[in-house]
């Protein structure tokens, strides 16, 4: 595993129904590229929730070199672990530097914890995020901080053969709060 600063990024998969609205998709041909989206109000509905059985907010950590590769790596990992449910590639990804988040949010006391709870030996590893505080204002604070620190990307499949996706960054993730809403505390 690499120990570079880059390798502290973790990613959370966003489901298709978390992402709504009119998107000005760039016309990108065959390669996966990172582009700035001009879409506004990208995520309109509060639909991020913990999956059944999850006890922490689930992120994946990949050790690939750049964002596009990392995100696709995480998607491949999710597909690998999907146990038949699969996932849509017309969806999105949240990116967070967990070391920065850990330092910035825990500067006055421990409010969040990130941990590698992966039992497998795969290189793309599962990370959990726990919000430790029960105080509602502190929880607001944590989630706002996570929103500030995260980047959000949309994925759009361009073709199935070969499997090709556009990767677009967008602003105003909006209602990420609900992701942490059902976090056990």
């Amino acid at each position: 595993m690499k120990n570079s600063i880059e390798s502290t990024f973790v990613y959370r998969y966003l489901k298709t129904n978390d992402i709504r609205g009119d998107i000005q998709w760039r016309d990108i041909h065959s390669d996966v590229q990172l582009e700035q989206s001009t879409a506004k109000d990208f995520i309109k509905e509060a639909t991020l929730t913990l999956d059944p059985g999850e006890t922490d907010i689930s992120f994946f950590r990949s050790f690939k070199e750049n964002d596009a590769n990392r995100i696709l790596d995480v998607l491949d990992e999710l597909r690998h672990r999907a146990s038949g449910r699969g996932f849509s590639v017309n969806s999105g990804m949240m990116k967070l530097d967990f070391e920065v988040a850990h330092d910035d949010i825990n500067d006055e006391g421990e409010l969040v914890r990130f941990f590698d709870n992966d039992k497998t030996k795969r290189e793309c590893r599962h990370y959990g995020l726990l919000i430790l505080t029960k105080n509602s204002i502190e929880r607001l604070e944590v989630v706002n901080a996570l929103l500030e620190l995260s980047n959000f990307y949309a994925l759009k499949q361009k073709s199935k053969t070969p499997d090709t996706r556009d990767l677009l960054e967008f602003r105003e993730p909006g209602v990420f709060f609900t992701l942490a809403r059902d976090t056990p505390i």
Partner: protein
Amino acid sequence: MAKNDENENVVRNRNSYFVIDYKEEIGSYEVELKDLVKSSLGSGSYTSLGERTLSAYSVLMSARSRLNEKRNRWYDELESSNFKPEFNSDNGVRFFHQTSSEVENTPSYRDIEALAGRYIKQAFDSVSQQAAEEKKVLILNACAQLSRYLPDFEERRPHYFIDSHSSKIGVTFQGGGTLTLLIGATTEIEFSYAEKQQSGMTRVSGTAKLTKHLRNSKNIWKLLQLQGRTD
């Protein structure tokens, strides 16, 4: 203070940035006005500064006046018997018995109706009747409290959600930091603002009590100002 007196005050005190003297709402307009005055000082003549200041002042007053009028009409609507957030299983949540022109002018209440309606329906499907009734009352009261601030929220780009832990309604504003307000069945508002810096993350959090008096609702701008300019 009469309007004419205010204008005179502006001219007399132009060197002292009259904007600072006005402690009422308006938010970003004030910032724009300050920028305008500063740029005039940097490049224009004294006369030009006076003219531009008066012109900007008129924009500020007009915007402030429009927002104030809108608020007052909205508060009148909330005080009338037409306003009472209610739920029934067929129609979901409805805030108003009848749709007046002022209600039409503040369309974002419909987003809250839809959000609250879904939440209450889900509660009746998933928890006991008694627990669902309790959630319903909390959410409907939260709707009534939140409604007080809609004219101010509509000036920005709110994202609404329901915090299921507390059955409160949240609203997040992004751009120039992230501000989240949590509004429940009482007049208390919990707020938190976070802004990423070059190093570290500044946060400002706390509670606001804008009282049960409806006309005090406009003080919500003081919280919204935490975010500063949004564009």
